[in-house]
């Protein structure tokens, strides 16, 4: 057994960081920190908002079904699910960094990582806020309605009690770093009740209306609230706040942890007192009116939300008359496309990204939202599809800025991942260890936490997939600073594979190829297969990306040549003569589950694009990929359907791509796969039990956009897989395109009528529709509008 210390020493981490060239990452953005007074836009108007960007319901959430019915708000770090019950508002509050567990660097007997809530850790709730208004029992109010305004980031509840209309707004402000609840009325009503803020880990709320504590892992956390109103009294009553006879009431809550994205400090900011900081935050916010706070928040939120607008057609008056949940059910029952609902589903994904991925950790399996402290799979970062899928939509949907949380995370973890790889990966008990005996660079396990640690089984190709995801962000944005930041990750992953690849001679030939060592194709089939397609494709893409990065940055030219040499010798998958499918295991046999959820061997079709349905790819490879995708079927979990849809979009099969989106829009009942009333995607873990897993909420919108625009550096294709349901007329603005462009697109009767190409760093690209193509060359910032595609 390795006798390395349980935690890498600071010196060792620093040296690793220096070696990896990631010193710039250290001391990066703390998650919860004091900030300067926010910019308050002068006279920022509150937009009325388009009804197309508003979801609405006619009933509040059940306290025990918050994950399906609660409405999410979030400021990128601090989030909540709100019940919107008139008599008892409930907020389940989360902070992205609120994690148990630690470095988790003692391997189990099988050379893999422990995976429990104590050792690996789990995402957990920060607290719960309740506002009780006894007179407003749901049985006593009428005309109840709640609305989620995606454009403004605002949850509104309204109802009538005894002739008075009561209105409640809830939002999570990034500028003020707090969640705000604003209660108003018209008609002479008054609010009487009480407010309580409670922890969920046995904390005691103090007379300061705040609590604070620390986990055994040393993570300190805290939350605080305050309230103010007019026309009545707001009084502190021990840990609670009572209010009586108020014409209006504002409640402000904030909180966080002392997590710091810095391996050197073991991911803590020892100087930060979260409870105290939370008190400061709510006190500062409370010096402003709720209206001011809302305007500040809405301006901040809209700046991102308005980056993309989409219309997929017009829904019927009947469809528009239904609330969101009725509409979801009608869409499934009647089989009638509901283009506005489908567009709203896409915008909901964007709303979640804006709310859950800014200035802190990236979106985990549940994004930023929880209904308890025992999320399945710990609410962690799964590196074999889920975290990647969470970010497929960001650049495509005008939210490149939200992508940074993923980059920041990988950089902050890298020193620890590197140290753990070097000390533990070649443990003799690890079935996936390098048979070469060499070790270099870094990789991860299938699960990663926020403490630099891994969970469950080693996942050698996970490094490559993280890198290709980070690389694509560069392709979309052409951001040189981003490329500079991720370069050490790419290079470290290349070094890992340089040490790991093994040489084999293909049967019946003398051709020597490089293949990946023993591995598991996620998440089925043999545990020890060499040369799995998943790894071959990802490493091929990693090498390709690294070569481009090296050339762009003019760095490590010699090493890039080495990598190019390796890439040339990489084995690439063949089509099985037995099944006609692209092989998954370097075997003609189907060694796994035919309809398995993962599409690991198709990673070269999407998100990669080595396999293209054009002359660049041998037809038999495209056919083999198509046959495999067909065999995988059309019925799976939400994220698996989304991935399938993306693959079908790449294959320009609009009907199948669309059907998979429709499948994901099916209402989830009894825990079944599908969409919950709050539009969260539900994953059926077992009969009768569904959990929220957010990846499909991003993967599905990503597929919708991919159906409208295909891009790779130097080539754009308009409406590659436009389904009949959206064909009549539509438009989208702000779609990100690889190669460094943003595209606005209009279509009618299935054909593009206008495309505006704007460069955000790209220079020259072809723009194609069907078999027509033209080339445009732009300077960054310049744009061109193209018409007459259908001639």
């Amino acid at each position: 057994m390795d006798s390395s210390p349980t935690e890498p020493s600071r010196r060792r981490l620093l040296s690793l960081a220096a070696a990896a060239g990631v010193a710039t990452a250290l001391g990066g953005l703390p998650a919860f920190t004091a900030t300067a007074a926010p910019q308050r836009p002068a006279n920022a108007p509150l937009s009325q908002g388009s009804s197309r960007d508003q979801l609405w319901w006619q009933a509040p959430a059940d306290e025990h079904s918050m994950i399906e019915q609660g409405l999410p708000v979030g400021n990128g770090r601090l989030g909540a699910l709100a019940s919107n019950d008139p008599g008892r508002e409930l907020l389940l509050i989360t902070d992205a960094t609120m994690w148990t567990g630690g470095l988790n660097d003692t391997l189990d007997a099988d050379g893999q990582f422990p995976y429990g809530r104590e050792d690996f850790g789990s995402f957990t709730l920060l607290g719960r806020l309740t506002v009780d208004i006894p007179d407003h029992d749901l049985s006593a109010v009428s005309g109840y309605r709640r609305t989620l305004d995606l454009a403004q980031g605002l949850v509104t509840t309204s109802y009538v009690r005894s002739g008075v209309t009561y209105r409640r707004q809830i939002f999570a402000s990034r500028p003020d770093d707090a969640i705000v609840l604003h209660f108003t009325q018209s008609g002479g009503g008054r609010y009487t009740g009480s407010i309580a803020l409670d922890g969920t880990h046995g904390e005691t709320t103090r007379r300061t209306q705040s609590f604070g504590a620390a986990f055994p892992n040393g993570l300190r956390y805290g939350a605080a609230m305050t309230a103010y109103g007019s026309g009545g009294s707001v009084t502190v009553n021990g840990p609670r706040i009572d209010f009586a006879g108020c014409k209006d009431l504002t409640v402000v809550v904030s909180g966080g942890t002392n997590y710091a994205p810095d391996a050197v400090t073991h991911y803590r900011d020892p100087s930060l007192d979260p409870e105290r900081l939370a008190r400061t935050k709510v006190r500062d916010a409370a010096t402003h009116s709720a209206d001011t706070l809302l305007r500040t928040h809405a301006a901040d939120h809209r700046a991102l939300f308005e980056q993309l607008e989409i219309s997929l057609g017009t829904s019927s008056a009947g469809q528009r008359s239904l609330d969101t949940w009725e509409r979801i059910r009608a869409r499934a029952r009647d089989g009638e496309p509901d283009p506005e609902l489908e567009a709203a589903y896409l915008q909901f994904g964007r709303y979640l990204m804006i709310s859950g991925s800014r200035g802190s950790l990236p979106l985990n399996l549940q994004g930023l939202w929880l209904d308890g402290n025992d999320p399945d799979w710990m609410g962690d970062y799964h590196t074999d599809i889920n975290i990647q899928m969470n970010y497929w939509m960001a650049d495509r949907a005008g939210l490149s800025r939200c992508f940074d949380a993923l980059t920041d995370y990988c950089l902050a973890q890298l020193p620890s991942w590197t140290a753990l790889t070097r000390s533990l990966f070649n443990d003799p008990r690890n079935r996936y260890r390098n048979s070469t005996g060499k070790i270099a660079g870094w990789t991860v396990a299938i699960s990663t936490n926020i403490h630099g640690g891994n969970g469950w089984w080693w996942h050698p190709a996970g490094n490559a997939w993280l890198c290709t995801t980070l690389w694509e962000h560069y392709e979309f944005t052409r951001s040189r600073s981003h490329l500079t930041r991720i370069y050490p990750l790419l290079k470290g992953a290349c070094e890992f594979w340089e040490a790991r690849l093994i040489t084999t001679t293909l049967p019946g030939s003398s051709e020597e190829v490089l293949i990946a060592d023993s591995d598991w194709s996620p998440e089925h089939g043999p545990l020890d297969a060499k040369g799995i397609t998943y790894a071959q494709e990802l490493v091929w893409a990693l090498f390709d990306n690294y070569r481009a990065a090296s050339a762009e940055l003019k760095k490590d030219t010699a090493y890039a040549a080495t990598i190019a040499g390796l890439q040339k010798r990489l084995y690439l998958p063949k089509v099985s003569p037995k099944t006609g499918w692209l092989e998954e295991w370097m075997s003609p046999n189907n060694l796994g589950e035919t309809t398995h959820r993962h599409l690991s061997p198709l990673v070269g079709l999407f998100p990669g694009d080595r396999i293209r349905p054009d002359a660049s790819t041998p037809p038999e490879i495209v056919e083999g990929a198509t046959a495999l995708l067909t065999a995988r079927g059309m019925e799976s979990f939400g994220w698996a359907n989304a991935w399938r849809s993306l693959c079908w979009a790449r294959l320009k099969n609009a009907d199948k791509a669309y059907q998979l989106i429709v499948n994901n829009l099916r209402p989830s009942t009894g825990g079944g796969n599908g969409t919950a009333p709050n539009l969260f995607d539900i994953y059926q873990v077992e009969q009768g039990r569904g959990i929220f897993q957010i990846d499909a909420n991003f993967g599905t919108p990503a597929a919708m956009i991919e159906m409208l625009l295909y891009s790779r550096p130097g080539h754009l294709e308009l409406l590659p897989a436009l389904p009949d349901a959206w064909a009549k007329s539509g438009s989208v603005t702000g779609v990100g395109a690889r190669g460094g462009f943003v595209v606005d697109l209009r279509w009618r009767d299935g054909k593009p009528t206008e495309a505006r190409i704007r460069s955000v760093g790209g220079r020259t690209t072809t723009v194609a529709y069907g078999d027509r193509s033209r080339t445009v060359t732009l300077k960054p910032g310049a744009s061109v509008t193209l018409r007459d595609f259908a001639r």
Partner: protein
Amino acid sequence: MRSSSYAPTAPGRRTTRAVLVLALTAAMAATLPAAQAATPTATATADSEAVAGVAGVAAKPYMGWSSWSMQSSKYPGLNPDGDYSYLTEKNVLKQADALAAKLKPYGYEYVNLDAGWWRDQDWTPQFDQYARQKADLGRFPRGMKAVADHIHGKGLKAGIYLPVGLEKEAYGDGKIPIWNADDCTTADIVHGDLRTTNGWDSAYKLDYSNPCAQKYVDSQARLFADWGYDFLKLDGVGPGSGKSGDQYDNVADVAAWQRAIAATGRPIHLEISWSLDIGRVADWKKHSNGWRIDTDVECYCNTLVSWENSVDDRWDDAPGWTRHAGPGGWNDLDSLDVGNGQMDGLTKAERQSYATLWAIAKSPLYTGDDLTRLDSYGLSLLTNREVIALNQGGTPPARPVTPSDPQQVWAARNTDGSYTVALFNLADAPAAVTADWATLGFTGKAAVRDLWNHENLGTYRNKVTQALPAHGSRLFTVTPRGGALATTGYEAESSANTLSGNASVADCSACSEGRKVGNLYLGGTLRFNDVVVDRAGTYQVKVAYVSGDARSVDVSANGNGATRHKLPSTGDWGTAETVSVPVSLKAGANTITFDSGSGYAPDIDRIDVPKSS
């Protein structure tokens, strides 16, 4: 006719009412197509003329208090001396005093003792020298008359209880004489084989072929009349009470009690219990003033009741009985334990729903709560005058106008043209529930009054939607301002339809045009072809059907996704009822399919499709 046996108190009572019903139905038919009578017609008006002969017994659902909920509960402190020990003179009088003080002004009048008044705290029974139950002096030191006297002194009425049959312990080797019956002994009143009867087999079955049996019942009734009791709950009655077959057929006992009560000359309300067989409802109606349709509402747990055990059963079980309720005899849903949330074991929403169903079903309203400990919300539920008026007034009982889905709507058409409309959300989470005016048979605007909250909510067009908490409800009076709904009818048996599987046309005297489609089971389907509407939309399609028990069916249009609906029981296989189901139709011709799926579906009589959505 049975009238001879009933003559002393109710000459021709039922006959009179039946004629009245027919007359009203005919009047309705003149104004609305018969098939559009979506809601129960006003058959149960307070026809005082019809009930005058019984001195007002059960002219309206009775109101009061019963001891059993507290006796049966393990709620801390209620039964300190053992199970059922709550039943004592002291406790009953305390409750009587509380009833008089708090609830009597609202119409509550009966104070009913339940099982055990003749048993000591070890549940050992006591009988007099004539094999009649005798007060246990530990519980009732002054005997039963003193209790009734006290209750009467408060201006209230007193109720007592018996299990049906001759309790085994009263048999006394067959040698116990029967009071006022020369030469009759207990051996003469039961069957020679000492066959047992009632829901617990606690008694020997009485053999009325020997006149001594009636004499025994007469002797008990005489005793109750002499003590001054106004109400008798006869329990364990079958078929029902979990029993069936000749041995447990107690119809003759109920009839004997009816005769015995009549012979006393004292108007004593005769209530029978429990889970009575609906197949014998004609007998229950003939011989009693009310019948428990279900098992005990009590949970026999640490509270008085619980939602699942078994308050919520009533939504499924009441619909089949609805049309049998009326002056003289009512569907008894059991105790209404909504007075103290903690003791009741129910949420506020559940308590309101409980009270709503009892009120609109015209169930007797008797609470089993500790009346000395009503909480303010419980008191508000029990004393809401608008809701009580609904239960006690001339409006007919409501029944479902939508399927028995988790969100459901019940309604009754009132004599003044308004509707009683109750919204229920039986799901475990809040949900919106919509009452669509089309399900009530009219269209356009209507005024909505909220009875529980004493508020006019304003005018609603075509429907009202409200958010309801888990297990929640709303209770409205809806007054139409618009017109009748125009519909197009399609007969299930029409040759234009497509039947598959075992589905087949059958005769049905209760059905329109005398026929229906039945045998809809295990994949059998009925498809209406060519259902034409002018505009696309969601239509409330009224389904007339026959189903002796609650059955589910998948309803779909045009081959699209189906929605499974549970249709409430119509009570027997000879009665048609209607509910409306929402169906999305396109402009022009549509198909509507009723698919039994993997189960058994109701028989379908016809559908009526609104001309506009």
